[in-house]
Structures are given as structure tokens and as C-alpha cells.
């Protein structure tokens, strides 16, 4: 089916790459995003402003970024992985110093025209850096302790900075998606067992250092009825909205919980709830099914790839995407404490959409360059 020579024998031309680009995948992303547009249109009581139109523009912009990123040679991405990571690290540090507080947390960097959320960039950069690093190691080398110091630092430093902001959701995402790359790179099982034990041991210390609002979220999660009008209100109302949607939902633009403002943050973190309220179990499952297709496809991209960098990168993108979906929907269903994690492609938000499309661009780049065989080499810092 594939003419291997065509890609191994000579360099690909732009037209080749555009041919290889999986436009169907982009269409799938568009379909998922459209469910978001519809919900944003509904939240605004049948109006494209203030959310739906903006979000559509962002998606188109994101699609452009995705194509551009996909066309860039994977080797180039590999080469600039560390510099990109360094830039991201500087930005995250900058947020700690000069960032202003949005939504009670210090996460945004005002660059004049746009407000940048460096932790979003870090999510991609960390994947690039780890993929780059593990690409250079054989399976045997991966499990050597001395080789673990660098990748651990790659994860721990930004996580530490993000926790300080404080943005627990992102910190967890960074840790978990980084951890997954360690796992996929073939790190011996014993490390994961040790790591798991270490986390268990650290729980009391972490608990001690949590902010009051974070602790309250956990309490509320464990017992939402504890304070139904206060801290438990969000999750209670979210469950009511979801549950009352029933099989087919209350109908588009007819969700009472969302439209009468019982449901909080419905255009961002709780958009899945609104979707389930208006479109019901059927609508919610449909979205989950679309997400599953995205995940299955990205797994297949990873498995098809002939170089370790691409494989790890594709898997990293896929896994962080999964965690977004899972954490957000588990949260709105009351399965996880409330964490500020958006639903990818659907929640209203600029940086999240753009960085996600950027990540899908990388995934697509891996797909287009899947037959490249890249030498392991050891030019770790270029």
C-alpha cells in the first residue's frame, strides 16, 4: 500500500506532505469542535457572540497552525526540542515573577496583544523534550539510574513551578503525561512500583501543602452534600444537569440547568455537562465516541512510526489529550474533585485550543514522517 521507497529514498516535497496529511482526521477534529460551537451558541441563548464565533475563529487558526506544524520536518522538531523546552521554561518562570492573576491563580502572562498561558506551551514542550531524550537511549540504557536524572529534571522543574502558581490540574497533567513517556520508553517496572510507593508516602506532605480551596475541593468531592450551597454547589448542580438530561436530553438550547444559570462555568469547564443536559446520554456518548476515534487513531500513528522520537511524541500527545478528556468529564460527573481542566476542543478558551491544535500538528507531523528512520545518535543538546 505504501511506497516505502518514496519516503526513504529521497526527501519529501511539500506536495507529498500535503497528500499524506490526514485530512479526515482534521475533519474529525472539526466535528468535535462543532459540538463545542453548538454548545457555545446555546449558552449564549442562540447567539454566535460572545463565544461561538470566537471559538470558531480560533479553531480555523488552530487548524492552520496544525497544518504548518505537520509539514515541518520531524527531524527539525527533534532538533529544536530542547530549545523550545528552554523557552517554555523561561516563560513559566516569568509567570511566577510577572504574571497576573486570572481566576484566582497566577497563570497568565500578558504579552501586550495576547495573554499567554505558558503552562500550555510547557505541556507540548515537555513531550518534545522527553521524546527527544528517550530517542537517544537504547532499551537497556533507559533503565539506568544515571540516565534518569535528566528526564526527571525535565518533568520536575516545570511541575514545581506550575504548582507554585498554583495550578494543580496542569501539574498533574504534566506529571502524568511525562510519566507515560517514561513508561512507553521502556523504563523498568520496578521504577513505577517505587514511584507509586513514593507518591503514596508523599500524600500526607502534599496534603499539608495544599491550599485551603484545594483541600475543600477534595472534601467536597468526597461528600458533595456537605455544603450543597457552597463548595458542593458546582458538582451537585452539574450532576443534576447531567442526570436530568436523560437519554435524549432536554433539547438543543433547552437545558434548564445551564440556561437558568444553575450550572456554573458552563462555557468552559462544565461544557460537557451542558452537552449531556441538552443532548442527553446519546449526545454525551457520541462525543466520547469521537474522542475514542481520535485516541485510537493517534495510537495507530504512534505504533506505525518507524522512529522512537515520533512514537513517543505521538503517544505523548495522545495520552495528554486522553487525560484532558478523562479528568474533565470525570470531574463534571462527580468522579473526581473539581480541577480546572477544560474539555479539549469543546471548552471555550484560546490558548488551550491553539496549543492542542499545535500538538495535533506534531501528531500529524509524526504521521507524515512515520517512515523516517532517525539515527539514535547522542547529540543530546543539538
Amino acid at each position, binding site marked *: 500500500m505504501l511506497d516505502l521507497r518514496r519516503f526513504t529514498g529521497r526527501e519529501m516535497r511539500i506536495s507529498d506532505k500535503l497528500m499524506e496529511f490526514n485530512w479526515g482526521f482534521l475533519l474529525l477534529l472539526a466535528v468535535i469542535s462543532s459540538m463545542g460551537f453548538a454548545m457555545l451558541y446555546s449558552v449564549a441563548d442562540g447567539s454566535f457572540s460572545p463565544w461561538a464565533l470566537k471559538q470558531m475563529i480560533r479553531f480555523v487558526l488552530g487548524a492552520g497552525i496544525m497544518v504548518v506544524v505537520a509539514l515541518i520536518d520531524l527531524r527539525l522538531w527533534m532538533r529544536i526540542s530542547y530549545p523550545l523546552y528552554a523557552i517554555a521554561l523561561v516563560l513559566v518562570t516569568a509567570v511566577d515573577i510577572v504574571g497576573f492573576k486570572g481566576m484566582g491563580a497566577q497563570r497568565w502572562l500578558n504579552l501586550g496583544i495576547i495573554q499567554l498561558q505558558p503552562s500550555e506551551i510547557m505541556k507540548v514542550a515537555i513531550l518534545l523534550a522527553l521524546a527527544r531524550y528517550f530517542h537517544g537511549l537504547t532499551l537497556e540504557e533507559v533503565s539506568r539510574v544515571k540516565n534518569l536524572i535528566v528526564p526527571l529534571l525535565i518533568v520536575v522543574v516545570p511541575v514545581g513551578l506550575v504548582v507554585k502558581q498554583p495550578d494543580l490540574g496542569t501539574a498533574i497533567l504534566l506529571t502524568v503525561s511525562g510519566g507515560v513517556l517514561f513508561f512507553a520508553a521502556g523504563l523498568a517496572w520496578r521504577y513505577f512500583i517505587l514511584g507509586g510507593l513514593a507518591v503514596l508516602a508523599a500524600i500526607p506532605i502534599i496534603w499539608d501543602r495544599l491550599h485551603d480551596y484545594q483541600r475543600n475541593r477534595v472534601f467536597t468531592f468526597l461528600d458533595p452534600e456537605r455544603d450543597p450551597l457552597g463548595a458542593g454547589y458546582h458538582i451537585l448542580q452539574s450532576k443534576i444537569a447531567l442526570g436530568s438530561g436523560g437519554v435524549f436530553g432536554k433539547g438543543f438550547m433547552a437545558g434548564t440547568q445551564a440556561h437558568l444559570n444553575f450550572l456554573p462555568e458552563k462555557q468552559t469547564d462544565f461544557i460537557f455537562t451542558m452537552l449531556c443536559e441538552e443532548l442527553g446520554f446519546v449526545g454525551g456518548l457520541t462525543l466520547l465516541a469521537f474522542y475514542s476515534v481520535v485516541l485510537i487513531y493517534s495510537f495507530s500513528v504512534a*505504533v506505525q512510526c518507524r522512529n522512537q522520537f515520533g512514537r513517543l511524541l505521538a503517544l505523548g500527545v495522545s495520552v495528554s489529550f486522553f487525560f484532558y478528556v478523562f479528568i474533565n468529564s470525570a470531574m463534571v460527573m462527580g468522579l473526581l474533585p473539581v480541577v480546572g481542566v477544560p474539555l479539549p476542543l469543546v471548552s471555550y478558551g484560546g490558548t488551550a485550543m491553539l496549543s492542542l491544535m499545535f500538538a495535533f500538528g506534531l501528531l500529524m507531523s509524526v504521521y507524515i514522517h512515520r517512515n523516517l528512520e532517525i539515527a539514535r545518535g547522542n547529540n543530546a543538546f543539538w
Partner: protein
Amino acid sequence: MQIDGRDSSRYQTFTRRTLVLGGAQAAAFVVLAGRMYYLQILKSDEYQMLAEENRINVRLLAPLRGRIVDRYGSVLASNRQNYRAVLVAEQTPNIGETLDRLSRIVAITPFDRKKIMRDIDRSPRFMPVTVAEDLTWEQFAQLNINEPDLAGVQPDVGETRYYPYAMELAHVVGYVGPVSDKEMEDADDEQPLLKLPGFRIGKSGIEKTFDQDLRGIAGATHVEVNAYGRVIRELSKDQGKPGAEIVLTLDMEIQKFACERLKEESASAVVMDIHSGDILSFVSTPAFDPNEFNMGLSQDQWKMLVDNPYKPLTNKAIAGLYPPGSTFKTMTAIAALEAGVDPNHTVGCNGKYALGNHLFHCWKKEGHGAMNMHDGLKHSCDVYFYDLAKRIGIDAIEKVAKRFGLGETYDLEIPGEKKGIVPSRDWKRATTGVSWQQGETLITGIGQGFLLTSPLQLAVMASRLANGGYAVKPRLTRAVGGQLLPKPEAPKMEVDPEHLKIVQGGMNGVSNEPGGTAYRARITEVGMELAGKTGSAQVRRISMAERDSGVRKNDTLEWRLRDHALFICFAPVAEPKYAMALVIEHGGSGSGAAAPAARDIMLEVQKRNLARPQAYVPRGDVEEA
């Protein structure tokens, strides 16, 4: 340099582990789908109900309070439109400025202003807050015209209880007021209506007793609200049911006349139909304006009512207790007749009656001469009744007095009835621990001593004397919600009609024979003559020294030391229909003060009877708005 191919161990590990991750993700998605299934399908009904509870707010609509009318249908209590101005804070750019502009139309005192600002602070910004109430039509019209200049101020019409005959009926109809915390607690079952802002319930009189009937059934609107409580739209509306109409036994024309006649005094009067017990007039003066109570009374107004020596807040007709004075001699006479005393038994009165070494005085210092029962009643001779009382003893008197309705309450339809006291040997021992003195029998015989009666009791006594011995009971209501109430039973009493005739004759003598104590206050219209009995109840002790130097005339005493003036009567003499008791506090004497007033009222009652309008047919419990 090693090429990283598909067959390398690194790739195999990657694929294997990717499979593990994929499996974990699939499992996680199954969990999500399962949770959705649980919430959206298994628990859907429950959450749907919670969502409806969130969004649907039931708002009660106060039902229109039932009217109260007199026996001929004159409206005594109704609902009046209350023109008011409400302010919606969120539509008002500058509340202070708007209030300033509004105050050019309606006076807003600094006190009102403070209250308004407090109300605004306490309620959501979209909730209308009342800023001015009870506007005149002119003010209301001005408000409507100036609406564009008064951003956020809206003209509004509410319902307020209105009493067209405020002073005349304050003690019968009563008034309504806001629900107190205690009333809220005491409400036996869940009464959401009581929690309605501005809801008024009956606080006294008929308004209180028939509150449940008058209240009606609350309507409700189901409205959709958002999370902040703002109404989005109305879903359904149930108008409820207006309260029942109460038809009283009163005749407002008589009531007005009687009130007018007694308005200068601290007095009370009860006019009864002697056969049915229907109370035609029920007066207690002075009174108060229940409309003011409804709107809320100022501290000063309240203080004035409480400090007034004429006690406008007391319903004297049922809660005022007075020694019956000589009106009680009718009871002593019946008791004596029942004890076998011959009506022609004669006692010589020289103004004094000795018992042991104690002297009892007649009101007429020089004495009445020889008195039989008829003359004793006619002249109200104290000595004659001292003699009767001594012969028959206190317990015989007590039995008769109780039979005629003294010392008891009648479950009248308004609260506050007092029992009074009809003394006996047992009663005295039980209450004071001291045994009965014979002297006390004598003064009880002339209606003094421990005896205490209410004007209503005296009216009942007079009715039972006049109706041939039926234990009629008083009532104030004829119909509730269109249903005529059954007439209270009036069983035949154990009394000899001959005895009644003798006493009635004596009372006729009082009014219609020259020399009778109320002869000067008789009715001269033929066929309308009344028969009565005067009473002057002493409220102070007259010392021996004063007796020697001459008892002071009432009009030389300060008001609170003067005798109470009492009069009981029935009319027409030939075929009695109506009975009445009238008490003027510290009025001086029964013959001078009470009898003329009673005569005027009784004459009006009978004239009114001739010109009686069409009887009012209650219209059932449906009432036009």
C-alpha cells in the same frame, strides 16, 4: 550508529506498553460511560425532579379576604385597593435622587427613607420594594404621569382591608395585622400563606375568630426562575378561592345610632333579640380606628390608646365587669318568689336596715315607706331587697342568677368574654378562705358586693326575663360562606312564668308608672314602651362620717369615683321582642344617665323594626372581586 527499526526491542516494548495504555484508556472510557449511564438513565428521574425543583418556584397568591356584612348586607369590612409606589433597585440609576424626586409627589420622611433603603439592601436588586403606600388618587395619577422621570418607580395596586365603620365596629369586627412570630409557630399545620410578605391575619374580633373562613384558599403561580431567583416566565396560575363572607346579626343602622348616642361616654350597650339571641347592636365606646391598626400604628398613637382612662382598647361589652347594682334586684325578686315569698309581702323602709349592730342604708335617705315587691322594684328600694335577701339567703340568689346567665360565658364569636362573679358561700370559702357573712348576702341582694357582671350578661339576663323563661344565648353571626348558621338552642328554663310576670310588671312600673326610677326616661310612643330597671353601682366606700354629713352627689366627685350607671330593659312591653343592657362607666346614676340613652336606642330599634329593609340573602361563598 544503530538504526532504530521496527524489529528492535525498543519498538516491541513500546508497542506492548502502548497496548497496556490503550487498555487502560478503554477501561477509563467504560467507567465514564458507565457513570453517564448511572446518572442519565438509572437516576434520571431523580435528577429531573431536582432540576424542576431548581427552576420552578411556586409563588402563593394571597386570596381575597372575605367580606363581613351586617344582617341586611351593609358592608362592614371589605378590601380596598391600596395605591402604592414600588421601586425596583436595578432599574434605578440613583436611588437617592429618585426618592428625592418622588418625595415631591408623596411625602417621604427621613424615617421612611431609612426603612426603604434597608428594604432595598435586604432584597435582590430586581425585587420591587414598596416605597409609598395608601396614596390618594391624585398622588397616584401624578405618579403615573411622572413615571418617565422616576426611573425604577412603578405604580402598583394592592389590596388592603378596609373598615367603612371603623370606630363603630372596632370591638366587634376587630382588625387584621401582620403575622407575628408566635402566630407563625402556633399555626397547627403547614401554612405557607402566612409567610407571604404583607399577609394579614385577623387579630381581634370576628376577624380573628373567623380568620380561617375569611382567609380563603391561596392561589399559586408556578414561575420559572433562574439561579438568582429572577422570574423568567410564568408557567401556570391558580387563582385560589376568595374567603367566605360572614354575615353578622348586627343592624348597622342601630349600631351607628347607639355609637353616636354613647360616643361621649365610656360606655357599652348590647341590644339582643330576646327569642333568637341575635345581637343587633354591640357597642363599646370609645373605640379605635382599626384601619390605623392595619397600616401600622405609631408609638404615639399607641401610647394615647393605652393611656386613655376611657380604655378604648377594652371591649367593655364583654370584658368590662361591673357590679350590676339595682338591675340585679330582678334576680333577688325571682329568687324570693321561688323561695315562697309572697309578692305582696310588705317591708317598711325608713332608709336604714339593721343587721346585728350594722346599719345598711337605702339609697333614699328618708326611706320609701311600705314597699311590696312591685313597688320595691319600681322605686328600687334597697331596704326591701335587704329584707328579701336576708330571708332567702345567698345560695338561693346565686342559683337564680346563674340560671339567668350571670357568671358564665356564652362562647360568643369574638374573643375576650369574661365570666364575672356570682358569689356563694362555697365560692367565698374557696377563693378567700373566709366564711360568708350575712351582711354580704344583703349587699348581694341589691347587686353590690362581690357581684361582677358584663353588659352582655346583663343583656342575656334581661332577655331571659322578657322571653318567658327561655335560656337564650347571644350570637353575633348569622351566616358563614352563604350557609345560614343554625339558631342556638334556647331551652325552657326552670322558672315559673307567673314569677316572671311579677318582675316584668315591676320593670314596667320602673319605666311607665309615675314615681318609677326611669319614668322620666320612658318611651311615649304607643306600642313601643319599654320596661326597665335602673342600676347605680357604687365604686367607692361611703364612710360613716360622709353619711352623717350627707352623701356627696356624684357630679361633685371626680369622674373615676362616680357610680357606674346601668340600665336593663326590654320592649315593647306588651309583646317583648328586644332586650338591652347599657352601662355608662362612672355615669352617675342609672336613672339619670343610663336610662335616657337606653330609651333613645330602644326607640330607634323599634322604629327600625317597622322600617326593616329586605332581609339580606347571603350569596354563598363566591364573592365578586
